[in-house]
């Protein structure tokens, strides 16, 4: 047999073997065991800790994690749907607007977890398709080398003194930023005027939250609009940044969790959701460095608990329906 033929044969057999292995796995809906595919946008290390803790309780479940940005995770799920078979069992990504769109496409399973009763009502889908798991606000990040007096209001971003030294993530690339755009433009204190002023104040628009933090930490920019927990972490590490909750309030995303409708392992998926929402799971989230969502669990140092936050809200359904138009309007506004 020629080398080429051998190579082809080897390739094919690898394909067949892996193919058989994947198909041979059976799922058991009776007890909690088997494979569970968990797609998430949480940082790697955090997802890993969550799975480790879950496995202490359910050692027979083999959790496979796929982690990427919310947009990539959803793209992957949608591509899988298009190809005919969603591989994810449990999904945990940035915001409820994203889940609303999946719910609209009838891709989510209804599951009313007992644990969800301890979670503030406005963060739980009344139909039970998804539940918030933590509280992530978008707040101000300030470079402490560039300024000594901390601002108290979002207005610092539109103040002429800070012209050219502010930065925010682009709603066209970041899901969290798209959420903020929807909420802030529907809020009387802000509206589209706020974004117009941001543009007039020469704000830099960048790809995502990570890039905002970087620009402010390096001193290239002085103020930024960014998701809170990464600032708290950088602050704890020693970066010259400070997190400020503006007095007008903050838009909040809740990293909801939900089960995909065609899950192969419903029992394990439900157990996983219960675990994330349980007191134990919530304490773990706080330990990792997030503001937990469950009543009675304290926030880690540097972050505020939900009851101490002034939350800016808008109707989720409306946000979901208007998202494309919001983005369009944004790109027109900043394109001029």
């Amino acid at each position: 047999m020629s080398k080429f033929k051998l190579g082809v044969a080897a390739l094919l057999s690898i394909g067949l073997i892996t193919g058989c292995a994947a198909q041979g796995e059976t799922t058991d809906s009776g007890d909690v065991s088997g494979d569970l595919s968990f797609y998430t946008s949480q940082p790697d290390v955090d997802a890993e800790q969550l799975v480790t803790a879950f496995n202490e309780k359910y050692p027979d479940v083999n959790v496979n994690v796929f982690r990427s940005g919310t947009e990539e995770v959803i793209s992957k799920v949608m591509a899988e749907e298009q190809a005919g078979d969603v591989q994810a069992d449990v999904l945990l990504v940035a915001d409820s607007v994203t889940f609303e769109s999946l719910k609209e496409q009838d891709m989510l399973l209804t599951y009313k977890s007992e644990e969800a009763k301890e979670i503030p009502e406005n963060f739980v889908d009344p139909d039970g398709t998804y539940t918030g798991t933590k509280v992530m606000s978008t707040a101000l990040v300030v470079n402490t080398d560039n300024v000594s007096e901390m601002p108290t209001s979002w207005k610092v971003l539109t103040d002429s003194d800070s012209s050219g030294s502010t930065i925010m993530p682009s709603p066209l690339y970041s899901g969290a930023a798209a959420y903020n755009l929807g909420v802030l433009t529907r809020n009387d204190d802000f509206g589209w005027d706020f974004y117009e002023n941001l543009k007039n104040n020469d704000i830099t628009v960048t790809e995502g939250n990570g890039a905002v933090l970087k620009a402010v930490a390096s001193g290239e920019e002085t103020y930024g609009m960014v998701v809170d927990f990464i600032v708290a972490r950088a602050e704890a590490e020693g970066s010259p940044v400070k997190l400020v909750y503006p007095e007008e309030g903050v838009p909040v995303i809740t990293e909801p969790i939900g089960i995909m409708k065609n899950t192969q392992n419903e029992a394990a998926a439900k157990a996983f959701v219960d675990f994330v929402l349980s007191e134990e799971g919530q304490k773990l989230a706080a330990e990792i460095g997030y503001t937990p969502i469950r009543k009675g669990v304290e926030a880690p140092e540097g972050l505020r608990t939900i009851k101490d936050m002034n939350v800016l809200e808008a109707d989720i359904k409306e946000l979901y329906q208007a998202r494309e138009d919001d983005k369009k309007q944004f790109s027109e506004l900043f394109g001029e």
Partner: protein
Amino acid sequence: MKANVSSSREIVPTKALSSLFTPKKLLTWTGIPIIFVIFLLPIYRLIALSFQKDGAFALTNYTTILQDPTTWSVIQNTLIIVVGSTAISVTLGVSFAWLVAYTDLRAKKLMQIFIILPFVIPSYISTLAWTQFFGASGLFQKVASLLPFSVPDINLYSLAGIIFVLGLSHYPLVYLLSVSVLRKIPRELEQATRVSGASRWTTFLKVTIPLALPGIASGGFLAFLANLDNFGIPAFLGIPANISVLSTYIYQQVVGFGPSAFANAATLSVILGVIALLGTLFQWLLLRKSKRIETTTEDKQPRYYLGKKKIWIEVMLWCFFLLTGVIPLVSMAMTSLLTAYGVDFTLENISLKNYQFILDTSPKAKQAFFNSVTLASLTTIIGIVVGTAFAYYRIRKPNPLNKWTEISIGLPYALPGTVMALSMIFAWMEPLPGWNPGIYGSIMILFIAYITRFLILQVRGSITAVMQVDISMEEAAQVSGSNGWAKWRKILIPLLLPGVLSGAFLVFLTALTELTVSSLLWSSNSETIGVVIFGYEQAGYSTYSTAFSSLIVGLIILGFFLLYVLESFWNRKVGKQS
């Protein structure tokens, strides 16, 4: 090129192939279909999707998108950026290749490493370094303020800025594929031209360039595709300036995952594919004018003595390398040593804790390193065998079938990584309706994706190498009794090796640090280096990501040294034999 190959000569290549792959038809009946499945299935799924609306065949996606003025401004930006940056890449690549191949510059081996660097450094690192360099408090401003005359501000967040950084990142592609070609051009030809009264410049234009065209066109084409696909640089520099190119615009469509998002993304990808085809056409037109070379050994002796100018040229070159290769690298290495991002680079803020985390604490990094090296090595080896066999077949026995195959092999390299990855999901989840072989979800999908995406690098490298070997060399071997395998072992492989290795080197490097495709296709335990670095970046751990990147770049430089030693050892051995 067809005119060169008379009908009686066509027997020769067929024999050479059949000696490698018996029976002869096997290659055609298994190889070509496999290449077709691997390359055309994802592209077919993508095109099919672009012609669908609500589950039925329709042209609405195209009519809507082509009527949208935004699309046209995006296409215009893309064309300006790709043409501009490719021009920079070709100019720099050819100039350096000429200087290294023909002149008596010193420390060429070291130079070569610095020429490759911009291609090795992840683009998010180099863009960041460039913006810092030109930034308000950057080195450029500091130097500029010392000068007696005023220097205009340079704004990288612009079309020109994107062109500049892209062009600099991809000129090594042109360099690598041109340098060995230049060395093979017989000096006698150039001398003859000079003796006949032609100026240096005329000789360069009339002799050197036409003979070196296979390499220049191949490298230029790869740079063109790389500039077309690149996401990181236009995203970082283009978003603040509100400049969209096709790759970033497609990403926006994918992110806006509404019901029509994929169809839109697919449609835009097809438009991008058409631009890539135009590039192929241009390359083909160029190559028709290229000439075959009679001798084939690499001549590394200098042909032009720079004399008094030498020292100045050397100073200029090293300044350039310092700027383009060393400054980004140093800024990356400096960040990786910091205890926290943004603190000053002072003694008390320096530690190796990030490296300790990467090498010791985090099991992920090690796993990812192992995965990426395995994937990259396998892809490279398969690439060398399949890519070179195909290149040989393509040049020695050109026909419409393998011409189209070459185009299909090139397309996946031009498509944006996100789109490519998504079409891989469409194609491999159920390659045949109702049959899920489990390739998607295992590391196999990454392997297939890498081959799909990077084989063109090997094919171009090998084509350049094959085009350099005149068919008379093979005939000579045949006449002197070397047939089949012996001919390959004694003549072809030694002659092809430098060119083939340039291609293999590109495949390995690109596959090793690949990001976008892996980030969508990986699953637990199949993380790659790119995915892990990207993960740290997204979580805000820039010190970890720079530490990991620094380690990888360090290892690549080390590998490059080893390869160079190996190559010169090989050349010496071959040189002795002949």
